[in-house]
């Protein structure tokens, strides 16, 4: 029988992989994909708890997360396009204008 911990651990694994992707990769597009992955992991948690309590509130919240993820991807990719056009690179190491 599947318990809530199964879903929590799956979500944990996906979230940790997303954190690793943001920290280890240098391509900003892959970093944005990893953020998408982390939001996805959080959605699993919400849906699993919604199933646990037998109510749809968690799923309604998951809808908002998906909307926020879509908005984030759209604006993030727009910024990536502008930066790539101006600086001719998508390497996060080269985007160091604010670095001390």
């Amino acid at each position: 029988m599947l318990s809530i911990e199964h879903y929590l651990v799956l979500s944990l694994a996906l979230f940790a992989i997303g954190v690793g992707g943001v920290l280890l990769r240098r391509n900003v597009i892959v970093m944005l994909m990893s953020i998408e992955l982390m939001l996805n992991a959080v959605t699993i948690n919400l849906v699993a708890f919604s199933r646990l309590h037998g109510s749809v509130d968690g799923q309604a919240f998951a809808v908002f997360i998906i909307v926020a993820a879509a908005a984030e991807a759209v604006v993030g990719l727009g910024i990536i396009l502008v930066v790539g056009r101006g600086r001719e690179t998508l390497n996060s190491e080269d985007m160091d204008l604010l670095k001390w």
Partner: protein
Amino acid sequence: MSALNTILFYFFSALAVASALAMITRRNVAHAAIFLVTTLLATGGIFLLLRAEFIFALQALLNAGGAVILFVFVIALAGPQATARLAPPSGRAQFVGAALALVVAGQILFAIVVGRGSLRLPAMATEIAPQNTEAIATALLHQFIVPFEIASLLLLVSMIGAVVLARRRV
């Protein structure tokens, strides 16, 4: 039924985790986008197992469909910069990044292990709303009507923002 659910759960979980790992390790950005689709669809399978049909449909249409198409378009638009083979980060940066990710994972795992003893969560509910989409629509349009309107405003703002950002200066 329960055994089938368990098998399907492990199948989808293994698929999701394996393609997520492949996504962050592939050098080719387009391949990473393909593996992102597999991860998102496998997660959609998990949503189906949890009887959240509406969230599954949203996941397949919006995330696996819309968002990844957007990523592929940007990869195509950015051209050689997107697919350029970047030098991998230094060994120290790699070590610190991996260590931080593991620390985050360890903290959450600790919270799960501790919480399972102290929180006393109920067992999985056996009764679920038969009309999933209808139930979500009712919740969204009654209980969560203000967040719903704010979300639509957020979508409008991000749409205008994306158009303004990506417009070529004339």
